[in-house]
Structure formats: C-alpha cells, structure tokens
C-alpha cells in the first residue's frame, strides 16, 4: 500500500504522555502536504464486492508505471465504508474532495490523467442529482450526505483503518489522554451518565446506569470487572457495527479503554462474529499498533493504568448477540442464554461484574469524553440523545449507511436521505430492528426514530437496520422470512422459542398457500403473546414482533390471504398467476428463452402465452420483460 505516513518512520514509538501524543499528531500533520493528491478507495463490503480492490490495484499499478511528478504522486488509501453502498465502488479524491461513483478499473487511467495530473473532474463518474440530472462534485453537496449528521461515521471512509497514525492525525486517543490526565474514573462515569447515552444494541438501556450498576456490584462483592464489546451483529440488513469496526477500529478500542478506566477493569473482550473477518483483522491490527504506542497494555500513557483486551470470535450463532449467550460463548461453552434475573453487570463473565456494550455505544464514548456530555446531550431528543447509525436497505434508491440525530422521522431517512423507493411511489412499510423489530406502515412515516417512539409504535429500534418495502412486498411473506431466520437461529433451550417459532411459521406457511382462517389469525396472535411472555431470552421474546406488527398494521392483507385466497402484493406463489398482457407484449421471445419450465409459447413478433399448469411462478419472465408485459394477479 502506498501511504504518505509510512515514509515518516515514526512507527512503534511508545507514547508516555498527552504531550507525546500531541507531538506525534503534529508531526504526522506536518509531514503531510495538504496539496498532495490523495485517493481514498472505499473498501466497505459492498464496494469490495463491486470490485474496489481491483480499482485500488489499478491505481497502484498505473501510478507506479507512469512518470507522474513526485509532487502530484497520490497517496492511495483503502478506507472503510464511505456510505453510499448502492453506488459503489466509491472514490474520494483529495484535496478537491471529488466524489466518484461506480468506478471500474478501466476508469483509473483517465482519473490519473485528468484529475490527478490535470486537476479536472471526470464528469461521467460524478454523482448526478436524480431530479435535475446535474453533476455534483463533492460528497458534501450530495443530499444523501449533507442531510446526515455524521459524528460516529465522521472518519470512516476518510482514514486508513489499518494505520494508527491516520487515526491520531484526526484526533484519535485525545479523549483517552484527556481522561487519564484530567479526569477521575468517577468523572468519566458521570460524564457518560449525563450525556444520556443509551445502548445502541437495541434495548436502549442507559449506558451510564449500566456502568454505575457494575461499580455497585464491585463494591458489594469485589472484582474483577470486565468490559466487553458486543460485535456479534447479525440482524438481516444490519451492517453498521461491521462498518465501524472495519472503518474506524480505534474508535471502538478507545471507547473500550475509556470504559475500562472508568470501571477499573484490566481485561476486556471484543466478541466479533466469525463472518466479519475484516473487522477482526482491522481490530487486531489496531490493538497491536495501540500496544506499540503505549495506548493499550501496561501503564497506558504512563498513567499507571493498565488494560488489555483480546478478540473472541463467534462461531456463527446469532443468539450469541444476546448478552448471557455471548458470555457462555466467551467462557468456552455452547452459546446458550441464561435467565437474566441477576443482571450481567452483577454476574456476567465467570460470574463477575461485566459491562457489555454494543460496538456503536463504545464508539460514542470517546466523543462524549472529548466534547463533553453537554455537547452530546444537545444532539437528538431529550430521552434519546446523540445520533444513530442506520443501515438503509431494501426497496430504496440510496442503499447505504446513514447517521442522523436520534428522533429523526422515518420519512426524512427513507424519502429524503434514501431518495425514496425506485418506483417513485410512497414506500409501503419499513421494518426497523431486524427480526426483533416491527413493521411500520407508511401512514406512520412521521414516527421519530428514537427508542421510545418506536416502542410506542409497536416496533423496536433494534440495532439499526431499516428494511424498506414497496407494494410488491407481502407482509405475510416478511413474517415468514423473519420467523424462518429465527427458527434456524434459536438455541433450542426453551420450549416457546424452539417449538413456538416453528408453529408460528407453519401457520404463516398455511396463509401463504391460501389455507387458514380468521380464527387462525387469532390463534397466531395468542401463540405470539405466549412466546413473548414465555421465552427465555430476548431472541424469543422479540421474535413474534414482525408478525404481530404486520397483523396490527396490515390485517386486511392477512384477511385477503385467508378469506379470498389472494396475495395482494403478488408474492405468495400458491396464490398468484402470471399472464402476458397482449397489448404490451412485443413478441421478443426473451421471457420464453429464460423460462426454466419452457412454458411460454408464441412465435417471434407474436403475443406470447404462459401455460399456467406448467408455470412454477418463479417470476423470471417478469424480471426479464423490458416492456412490463408480464402481469401477476
């Protein structure tokens, strides 16, 4: 990797004071010429899948092979997720701050010649305003970005997550140095309490109160106390913790060290799901570099405070995101939860007081310590302060990572930042909180996205996935999808979850094939309530939420399935038929060629016909037809 900072040769020097840290920061900033071009290649999951690694390789090769003047030789950095995933691979070119989208390796030569050497933008790679079609040059001018308030994501996509010096240059570890030098552990706890920070994992428990609970437990029964990062993000559609761990691992680490200082912990764990190898790698590198700089390990910044952490990888169980299951997993046992009648701040890892916070929660801590609880509590709404990172996915134009103040209305996130749904019609519903959350209909689009408003609406903040649905999404099918997911992920310990979720899913299966009655909808609701009341852990107690909220808000769609044997959204295979609109069909044969059943007949330039008996309702013909001639009813 070509990087401006590595030439500085200031690696592996131990920092012994706040002054040392400031001096290093200044040295890094001074060594960097602000006019030197810099190419930031997004290496978020979406962009990597779209070929950003190849784009990066093309840059490195072309720059190395060409005889660019040393003054304009660009620093090339792989960054974390830049946010607008649907337009990847993304590039940011400094110092102009140019934002390029959907860059292919073949575009690189032109970018080097035109932008790096010629200081001219490549027009066709710029973001186009969807309404006016006008090209927009910088990220800051794009509505997707400028309607957000990015404090957690601020550095993600701008720094190289594998280089601690990049992080230090933008103020990394300043909060830690400040706390170690000027604050007592109690003051750190007070600051977090006053900030109003609530757990970002989903339940929204006040972080300060959790920390105080652990301190009380230590007072009562003695230590040790552990701090743990919950990086077992697993909700379908959620990837914000992944983006934070991959894109700004030092933010999580600094938060964890601050928490350890506040609580008097000397040992911490980062529990990261096995499916996030890049997050594991970046955090491992971050810890190694932090240790070398005296920011982690013995006698941090010569303050007398020692703390170290280790990474524990999950083994692919969604349930291990549940606190007690996560602890049993770290302890080396099968990840099954235990009842939480004694809270984990009192009896967590190995029965000792333990503070477990979500990745995003930890990443908030340095900000609060650096800028103060007052500053923080003014963002958002009184009972849900700060910002929240959401993953905007599904039927929405701007799929990506969005950070807004708590309490922002759903419509602002989906319609303004997200740019609405592709068809241009109003969205049908938004599923918040993944499989534990609820389905909020369009008529409640002004609901503020904060912990209490969402709970009131019958949904849940959850970790922050927002799955947008349009009129072609069937709520019965959505309910089935999430139940099938949780059925697979249930640990199987308690009966309501192990047997109940399967039974609920079977009832929904019946609905989607036109079987069932209104009485079954009542039974389903009653069974769902029994599971909410009876299940052992949060996976089970929240599992019926998607189903219950869809029954609450879309009862007529359920009734259409059971009474009229119709799926209004045209999704449930047993209840739909495909046909061809003779007026729209041009007889191009393309659906007939794609049909896996060979059940579309009709000669070229003649209207085609689908054989209903042979059709398996896969929908490929509909996806293939360019003339919207395939109808579903």
């Amino acid at each position: 990797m070509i990087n401006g900072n590595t030439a500085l040769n200031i690696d592996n020097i131990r920092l012994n004071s706040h002054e040392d840290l400031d001096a290093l920061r200044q040295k890094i900033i001074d060594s960097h010429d602000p006019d030197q071009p810099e190419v930031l290649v997004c290496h978020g999951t979406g962009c990597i899948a779209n070929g950003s690694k190849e784009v990066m390789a093309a840059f490195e090769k072309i720059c190395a092979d060409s005889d660019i003047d040393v003054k304009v030789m660009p620093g090339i950095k792989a960054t974390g997720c830049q946010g607008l995933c649907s337009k990847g691979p993304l590039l940011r070119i400094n110092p102009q701050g140019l934002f390029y989208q959907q860059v292919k390796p073949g575009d690189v030569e032109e970018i080097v010649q035109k932008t790096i050497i010629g200081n001219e933008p490549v027009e066709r790679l710029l973001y186009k305003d969807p309404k006016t079609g006008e090209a927009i040059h910088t990220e800051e001018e794009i509505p997707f970005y400028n309607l957000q308030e990015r404090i957690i994501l601020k550095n993600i996509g701008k720094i190289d997550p594998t280089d601690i010096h990049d992080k230090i240059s933008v103020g990394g570890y300043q909060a830690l140095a400040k706390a170690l030098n000027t604050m007592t552990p109690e003051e750190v706890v007070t600051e977090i309490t006053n900030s109003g920070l609530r757990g970002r994992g989903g339940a929204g428990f006040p972080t300060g109160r959790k920390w105080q609970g652990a301190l009380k437990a230590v007072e009562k029964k003695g230590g040790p106390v552990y701090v743990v990062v919950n990086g077992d993000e697993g909700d379908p559609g959620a990837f914000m913790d992944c983006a934070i761990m991959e894109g700004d691992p030092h933010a999580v680490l600094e938060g964890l060290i601050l928490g350890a200082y506040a609580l008097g912990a000397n040992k911490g764990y980062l529990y990261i799901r096995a499916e996030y190898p890049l997050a594991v790698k970046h955090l491992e590198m971050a810890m190694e570099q932090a240790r070398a700089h005296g920011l982690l390990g013995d006698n941090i910044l010569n303050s007398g405070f020692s703390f170290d952490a280790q990474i524990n990888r999950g083994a692919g169980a969604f349930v291990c995101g549940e606190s007690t299951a996560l602890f049993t997993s770290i302890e080396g046992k099968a990840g099954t939860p235990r009842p939480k009648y004694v809270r984990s701040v009192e009896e967590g890892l190995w029965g000792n007081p333990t503070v477990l916070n979500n990745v995003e929660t930890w990443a908030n801590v340095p900000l609060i310590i650096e800028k103060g609880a007052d500053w923080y509590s003014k963002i958002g709404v009184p009972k849900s302060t700060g910002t929240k990172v959401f993953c905007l996915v599904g039927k929405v134009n701007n799929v990506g990572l969005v950070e807004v103040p708590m309490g922002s209305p759903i419509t602002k996130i989906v319609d303004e930042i997200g740019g609405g749904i592709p068809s241009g019609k109003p969205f049908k519903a938004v599923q918040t909180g993944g499989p534990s959350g609820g389905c909020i209909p369009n008529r409640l689009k002004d609901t503020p996205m904060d912990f209490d408003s969402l709970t009131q609406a019958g949904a849940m903040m959850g970790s922050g996935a927002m799955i947008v649905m349009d009129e072609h999404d069937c709520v019965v099918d959505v309910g089935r999808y999430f139940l099938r997911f949780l059925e697979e992920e249930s640990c199987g310990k308690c009966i309501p979850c192990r047997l109940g979720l399967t039974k609920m899913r079977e009832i929904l299966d019946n609905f989607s094939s036109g079987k069932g009655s209104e009485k079954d909808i009542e039974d389903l609701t009653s069974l769902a309530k029994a599971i909410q009341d009876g299940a052992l852990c949060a996976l089970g107690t929240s599992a019926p939420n998607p189903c219950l909220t869809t029954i609450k808000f879309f009862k007529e769609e359920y009734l259409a399935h059971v009474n009229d044997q119709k799926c209004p959204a045209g999704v449930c295979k047993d209840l739909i038929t495909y046909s061809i609109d003779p007026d729209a069909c041009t007889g191009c044969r393309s659906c007939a060629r794609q049909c896996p059943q060979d059940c579309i007949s009709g000669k070229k330039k003649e209207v085609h016909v689908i054989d209903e008996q042979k059709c398996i309702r896969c929908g490929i013909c509909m996806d293939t037809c360019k003339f919207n001639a395939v109808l579903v009813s």
Partner: protein
Amino acid sequence: MIKFNINDTEVEVEPGCTVLEAARQYGFDIPTLCHHEAVAPSGACRLCMVELREGDWSKLVASCIYPVAEGINIYTETERIQNVRKWLFEMLLAKCPASTEIKEMASKYGVDSTRFPAENPDEECMLCGLCTRVCEEIVGLSAISLVDRGVYKKVGSPFAQPTDVCVACGCCVSICPTGAMRSRIDAVRRTPAVTLTPLAL
C-alpha cells in the same frame, strides 16, 4: 427471612430461595418438567412461569430460577400464565405424543388435545436437559450432552457414538420426567448392560 406475597397470601422463606421453592413449601401448585432438586435449575421448560406484579406493571418470570425478594407480589394463576401454559402443553403434546407423563400433566391443567399434528408418534423427549445436567453435575461424567442447536437439538453422546464413559448408573433414566431416557440409554451404552426401569432403581 424474606417476606413476600404469593396470590395475595404473605409467605416467609430463607433468603436465596427461589420463588418455586417458596411456592411449593406453602402448597401453591406450579407445574414443572425441567426442574429437579438434585440439579441446578435451567429455566428451559417455561411451565413454571409466574406473574410478577408491581402496581400496573407486570412481567412473567420463571419461578424455578427467580430469586425471592422482600415485598414482591407473585401470582401463579393469571390469564397470561394460563395462555403460556396452554400453548406449551399443546406444543408438547404434538412434539412428544408417546409420553404418558406429559399427557397426564397436560390433562391436569385442562389441555387434553392439541391443534398441532403429531410429528413423530414415538417421541417422548422434550429436551429439558435434566439427564445431561444430572450426568454432569451429580455423576460427574458428562457422558451425554445436548447436541446441535435449535430445532435440531437432541440428547446424545459425543459424535453420536456409543461411549464407555457411561457407567449405566441410570441417573438419567430416573430423573427423566417424560420417560424418554428409557429407550435412549442403550444407544449411549454400547450394549444393553442391565434392564433399567425407574422402578428398578
């Protein structure tokens, strides 16, 4: 001593007691399948759910594992509890059609039939885990354990192979609340060592 209320009656028990122990001591009836005095409670079967009320607020807790506390109000027969129990028994009747023990218990609580079809007519095990807990905690061998996850969970020996670790002590058979271990122990042992029935023990 800790004083609290069960069904509006004041009771008094030693600290450290669970609500279930207190309730049974005072003769309140609470059904259980996964609970046994000999082993640590696990809170898996959820039949022992009771309602904890505080003013307008209430929640259901598993009494086998919920510690008593001064002044709490516990109810053992509310609508919410009955709803949980009814569904649990209906699901258990469909899951374990061969278990007479489950049939009798369900009938006692007013559930004589189930709306769900029986899956395996010979099934008795409801995975309460008493057998594996007694083998681990009391016998100290862990010859059997709960294997796999979720809907695939089952009781078995490592790698589903017969194991000499099992000493055929029969604790698992005697503690099993549904009679399921009777037919399983021979799969754990290599050969039928002795004829084991709960009565013989």
